[in-house]
């Protein structure tokens, strides 16, 4: 039904897509798999007639049901496309946040499609939208209809997007990474939904993803793309069982699998901590006291070989909710207590997001923290790092200035600075806080070069700026920045989830290598169970602000006690 013949697309001089041949028959789901920059999205956008005007088709053509939609040399025929878009082909985008208009109610936006392509009356249109909402599994269609996008969760928004895409029962649906921005459990529901739609509506589906595992679960056939070319194409199981191309094999291997469990690093380090005491005086004494106290304790707990770098005792974290009116005296707070006079006077109440967290982290250890988004993972980590002071309970650090690796490598580096400057800044800051740690300029530059090498970047990166680096390279710089003051303890908040699979594997390797070299303790936050399995010694499962299970990785994976843990494990 869809035929893409020898398609090449170029932006100026650079070719993004090179001689791609794809075809799709009715009722078939074709997965297009590749890393960022492989040309998979450009192919899809060109097929949909949505590619930027600067994109030129240099060879080949696109056929839809025998009609030529686009041909080499001729510009995009907007008129022709308009008669196809929406009615006969539609698209689901990656970002459910940005693909819906924030100023319009969800129902209206879906209705828009009907208004453009059908002659239905207003009441019929609404009925049809509600029907579509029900079909995509939105439980309260009336409520969703009247909601603005920001009032809906990510999963709900994506369902609205899908409803919009399928409401006219198009013959072709292009889904561009529809689940990448979503949680694992939601991801699965969306995949199921797409499968169900495909079965009932019998439309052809082009599923674009960087995740081979997802493609395996949904698609009938897959095409693997690299550098704008299709390197391999075939039935999905066949590709998985005997990949012909080296690249495909690498992609399959890069997906973190439970088979490759990491070596237990704690076995490597059995001797007690010798901390780095270069720090301010107060912190020094605090730490010293804490360490000696901890040593006494651990001598009794023979199971652990060293004093913890972090102890968290009965920690609760709350936010000030500013929307309390003075008159709302009958409102109850999170714990079911009546609002106090003080809360009513100040117009704020406490919204508890983490309650009763109790754990410790030992040197050289990775503690995984898993749970769905909104379960309090990030709030907990922020509290630990002192970025949120609304806490109750106790946090005791026995490391100096613990650092953090952020999820998004595109926003965690100051875009106006050079890499060298960024790597030296932690040293400058440490020097400014404590004169005894001050270093000469030359030493700092040397340390920065040293760190560049350590995180696997060439020296030439020293004078570059973040915008000239890829996501993986940025994450390396980010890690270097966190480690250059040798903090001993790091919080890694989804450090690989924004990266391509092969890059993910490299970054995880780097983190593990550095952990061994520098004897780091990690608090590793992730929603990806497989990543956690590969990285962590112990795992902590969080649900609705509470830590419901904590234990050795193997233990959790083989004998999960809680139903929720089982669910998480099954979903991934």
């Amino acid at each position, binding site marked *: 039904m869809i035929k893409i013949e020898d398609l090449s697309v170029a932006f100026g001089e650079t070719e993004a897509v090179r001689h791609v041949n794809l075809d799709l028959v009715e009722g078939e789901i074709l997965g297009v798999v*590749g890393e960022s920059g492989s040309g998979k999205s450009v192919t899809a956008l060109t097929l949909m007639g949505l590619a930027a005007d600067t994109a030129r088709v240099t060879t080949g053509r696109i056929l839809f049901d025998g009609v030529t939609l686009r041909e080499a040399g001729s510009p995009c025929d907007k008129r022709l496309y308009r008669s196809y878009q929406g009615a006969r082909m539609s698209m689901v985008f990656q970002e459910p946040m940005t693909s819906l208009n924030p100023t319009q109610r969800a129902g209206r936006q879906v209705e828009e499609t009907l208004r453009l392509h059908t002659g239905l009356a207003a009441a019929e249109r609404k009925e049809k939208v509600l029907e579509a909402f029900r079909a995509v599994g939105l439980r309260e269609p009336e409520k969703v209809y009247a909601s603005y996008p920001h009032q809906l969760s990510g999963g709900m928004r994506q369902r609205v997007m899908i409803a919009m895409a399928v409401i006219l029962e198009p013959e072709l649906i292009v889904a561009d*990474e529809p689940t990448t921005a979503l949680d694992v459990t939601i991801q699965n529901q969306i995949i199921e939904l797409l499968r169900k739609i495909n079965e009932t509506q019998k439309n052809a589906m082009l599923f674009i993803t960087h995740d081979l595992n997802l493609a395996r679960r949904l698609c009938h056939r897959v095409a693997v793309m690299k550098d704008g070319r299709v390197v391999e194409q075939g039935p999905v199981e066949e590709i998985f069982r005997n990949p012909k191309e080296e690249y495909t094999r690498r992609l399959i291997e890069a997906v973190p699998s439970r088979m490759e469990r990491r070596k237990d690093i704690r076995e490597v380090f059995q001797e007690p901590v010798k901390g780095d005491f270069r720090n301010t005086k107060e912190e020094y004494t605090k730490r010293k006291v804490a360490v000696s106290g901890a040593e006494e304790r651990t001598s009794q707990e023979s199971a652990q070989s060293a004093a913890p770098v972090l102890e968290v005792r009965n920690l609760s974290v709350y936010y000030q909710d500013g929307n309390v009116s003075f008159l709302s005296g009958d409102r109850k707070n999170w714990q079911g207590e009546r609002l106090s006079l003080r809360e009513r006077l100040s117009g704020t109440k406490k919204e508890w997001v983490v309650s009763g967290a109790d754990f410790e982290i030992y040197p050289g250890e990775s503690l995984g923290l898993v749970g769905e988004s909104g379960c309090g993972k990030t709030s907990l980590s922020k509290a630990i790092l002192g970025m949120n002071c609304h806490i109750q309970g106790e946090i005791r650090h026995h490391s100096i200035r613990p650092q953090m690796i952020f999820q998004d490598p595109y926003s965690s580096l100051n875009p*106006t600075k050079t890499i060298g400057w960024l790597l030296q800044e932690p040293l400058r800051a440490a020097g400014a806080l404590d004169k005894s740690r001050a270093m000469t300029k030359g030493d700092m530059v040397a340390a920065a070069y040293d760190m560049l090498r350590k995180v696997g970047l060439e020296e030439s990166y020293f004078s570059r700026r973040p915008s000239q680096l890829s996501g993986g390279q940025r994450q390396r710089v980010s890690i270097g920045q966190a480690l250059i003051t040798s903090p001993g303890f790091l919080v890694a908040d989804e450090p690989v989830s924004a990266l391509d699979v092969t890059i993910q594997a490299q970054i995880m390797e780097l983190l593990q290598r550095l952990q061994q070299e520098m004897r780091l303790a990690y608090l590793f936050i992730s929603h990806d169970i497989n990543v956690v399995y590969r990285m962590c010694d112990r795992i902590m499962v969080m649900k609705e602000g509470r830590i419901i299970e904590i234990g050795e990785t193997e233990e959790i994976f083989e004998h999960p006690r809680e139903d929720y843990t089982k669910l998480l494990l099954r979903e991934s």
Partner: protein
Amino acid sequence: MGRTFREMERTPREEGGSWKDRIPWNKYFLAGLVMTGLALALGILGLFWTPYSTTAMSASEKFDPPSLLHIFGTDNFGRDIFSRVMKGLGTTIGISGLVVLFSGSAGILLGALTGYFGGLADEIVMRVTDAVNGFPSILLTLVIISLLGSGRQNVIISLGIVFVPSYVRIVRSEYLKLRDADYIRRARLLGVKDVRILFVHILPNIFSVFWVSVMIGFNNAILAESGMSYLGIGVQPPEASLGNMLSDAQGYLQAAPWYALSVGLSIVWVVLGFSLFSEGIRRGKCE
């Protein structure tokens, strides 16, 4: 490839390279550069040398139309208009520059502090700027001038005060946005001192936004200064300023249309040139 899109979004232009590579050679920039450059050169030159004295009157040369001797003609006192325009350009551009410098730095300071720290000080400063914004700006300058008296220095002060709120708002909103950026969070985690975060870590990131408002502010300052001098509350005669010259010229629209025309077009020239210049910078290299 979603991620690469994001990458494209977030890196509108390649940074790095020497400043020479970063000059946006587009037609807006070029036209603006030529026009502003000429005005600026004439203005600066006018401070030291003019073809004729700007105050010397000559009854015999009253209302001479433009000629090779007096290319903009002469005014009601027989003074050379071109010389006076040169002098006026210098006055106007100088005053506007100082106004922008004053209000811009005050705006950065107040905006940075309020945006980054928030709290009570933020509340107070914002309400004050609201109050200032509530008055029509010309009324407010009138009030300040009537308190301080007219004259070059007081024009700068009053316009500076009136212009501060717009900068505070822009700078504050940028700081508010960036204060929660991951890289600023990291800087805090590293223990970087607040002052350093404010002016070393954040400030360079708001320059692109700030620069645009400085450009607009400069143009507004030129118009405002001309307006004030036109109304007689700005630079006082016999000192030449584009505004008070325009006010003089108004009386002789019939007798000497070139007077009003040459002065008015000079103002248009400066403002248009500067607009084009800033537009060229804003568009950057891609066009």
